[in-house]
């Protein structure tokens, strides 16, 4: 019998596993996929490493910072700041028709860019900042208010509102059109007030640290072990049944499978689990180009460019296979590497990744042949759209790959390949069953640091306070 079974070996599940194993709980993480990481994973193709998910770690604070989620996470998991080898971004921008607003890990740049592009809005921006700083994470009622309404009461320039929402929605909003005010504040802090960084080795470095620590502490991890149902007796979860029919018993179950997906696992025996809460609908494609040179040699030195080719920012499910009117251009080369022992100054290849909104159902309905063709077609369209905002790199492409909503589903098992999960979050992690909890995307903290904190805080709140008989 396990103290806790964790469903999903993504960042949140691994982090929860570390906390529990550190305090001598017997923990087993079950992962359906053949590798760890969930949304934030990696693969190797034709001799090159590719990341899924991670563009940049948000919530970056420099060594020595004591406040903020990164510092808290390091203390909770007993890591040193150097263990994640985070290299800060060289700078980023948000590009709309006629406006380019740069930002970096120093808020002053964003302030001066707003003053330059939107004179007259500086005071309003300061007012917005103080609202965001004052926001309390745990107030569920305030959390769910419309961020668009609150922000438009403060800022009067419509394009500035769209520009501020664009990166925050792209990096963590499961709701269409609008955003929960709580999520807006969390994302705003993580991107504009803290900042962006990336380990030289990409997401695999963070995963390697998490899994190594989990194993050192005696945690068990079973890959290719999908959970087909949660067993319920007398109103409590008592264990799980695996896809292969085996039953495993546990005192607690912590699921990072998503709210809808977790409720489905226990709905056979728990009527309250059949709640009518919709799954998320927003999924992405990512078009990845390997270049024969560093992007800086082409005049592109920004880590992330968020672009939108019309004045309004439409954040909703694409009707066509993809919607390339808006997108994110990430260049993992454009971070200040070379300050940790194992790092080089620059990555071996130039890489440009372009994220576009995509329609899961349409990608899912394609035959194998059509799927291959549509990948090629939409790769070209996504790149053609992006080079209106960044230097044209097309003549330098030496290899490409693309992942689609189907890929995201394979890695995350989320319905609809929903990158940020369901629109409605369960901040306290509780479910209709007293010893079943959820963490990860549908608990509500997003981004790499956010999802790790999600695993930590749900383990702390609900499982560690229980008496252990270890």
């Amino acid at each position, binding site marked *: 019998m396990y103290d806790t079974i964790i469903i999903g070996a993504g960042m949140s599940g691994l982090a929860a596993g570390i906390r529990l194993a550190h*305090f*001598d709980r017997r923990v087993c993480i079950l992962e359906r996929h053949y590798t760890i990481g969930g949304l934030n994973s990696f693969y190797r193709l034709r001799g090159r490493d590719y990341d899924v998910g991670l563009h940049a770690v948000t919530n970056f604070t420099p*060594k*020595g910072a*004591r*406040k903020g989620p990164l*510092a*808290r996470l*390091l*203390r*909770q998991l*007993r*890591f*040193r*700041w150097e263990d994640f080898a985070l290299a800060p971004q060289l700078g980023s921008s948000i590009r709309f028709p006629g406006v380019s607003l740069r930002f970096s890990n120093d808020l002053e740049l964003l302030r001066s860019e707003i003053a330059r592009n939107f004179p007259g809005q500086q005071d309003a921006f300061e007012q917005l900042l103080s609202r965001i700083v004052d926001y309390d994470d745990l107030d569920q009622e305030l959390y769910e208010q419309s961020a668009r309404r609150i922000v438009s009461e403060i800022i009067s320039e419509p394009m500035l509102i769209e520009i501020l929402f664009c990166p925050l929605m792209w990096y963590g909003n499961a709701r269409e059109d609008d955003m929960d005010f709580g999520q807006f504040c969390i994302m705003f802090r993580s991107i504009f007030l803290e900042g962006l960084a990336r380990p030289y080795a990409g997401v695999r470095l963070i995963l390697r640290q998490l899994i190594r620590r989990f194993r050192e502490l005696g945690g068990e991890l079973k890959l290719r072990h999908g959970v087909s149902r949660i067993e319920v007796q007398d109103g409590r979860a008592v264990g799980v049944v695996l896809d292969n029919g085996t039953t495993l018993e546990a005192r607690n179950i912590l699921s990072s499978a998503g709210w809808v997906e977790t409720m489905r696992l226990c709905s056979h025996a728990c009527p309250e689990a059949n709640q009518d809460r919709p799954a998320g609908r927003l999924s992405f494609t990512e078009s990845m180009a390997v270049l024969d040179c560093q992007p800086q040699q082409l005049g592109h030195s920004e880590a992330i460019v968020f672009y939108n080719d019309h004045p309004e920012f439409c954040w909703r499910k694409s009707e066509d296979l993809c919607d390339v009117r808006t997108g994110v251009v990430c260049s993992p080369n454009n971070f200040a590497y070379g300050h940790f022992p194992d790092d080089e100054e620059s990555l071996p290849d130039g890489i440009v990744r372009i994220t576009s909104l995509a329609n899961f159902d349409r990608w899912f309905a394609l035959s194998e042949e059509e799927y291959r063709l549509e990948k090629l077609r939409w790769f070209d369209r996504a790149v053609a759209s992006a080079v209106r905002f960044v230097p044209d790199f097309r003549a330098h492409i030496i290899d490409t790959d693309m992942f689609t909503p189907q890929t995201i589903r394979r890695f995350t098992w989320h319905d609809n390949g929903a990158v940020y999960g369901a629109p409605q979050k369960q901040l306290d992690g509780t479910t209709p069953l007293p010893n079943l909890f959820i963490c990860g995307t549908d608990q509500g903290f997003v981004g790499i640091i956010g999802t790790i904190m999600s695993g930590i*805080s749900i383990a*702390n709140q609900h499982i*560690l306070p229980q008496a252990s008989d270890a």
Partner: protein
Amino acid sequence: MTPAEIRDEILDILDNIAPDDDLSNLKDEIPFRDQMELDSMDFLDIVMELRKRYRVQIPEEDYPQLASMQSTCTYLAPRMLDLERIAR
């Protein structure tokens, strides 16, 4: 355990929680909170580390006793008199 041993153990726990902090200048009579950037989650971790290492149970109403090194040692001394560390 002697109060000096308890102090060393608390230092070890703090070093474990916040390895990037320099603890050599820690003042025993000043609250931890005023010298280190510890939040409520970190304080709970001190309690949980003590439970893990010595099986010493500290009821929630006694948490304020753990505010500084001095008050922690005073509080723990009678409770840890006969205890030896069981796990690291």
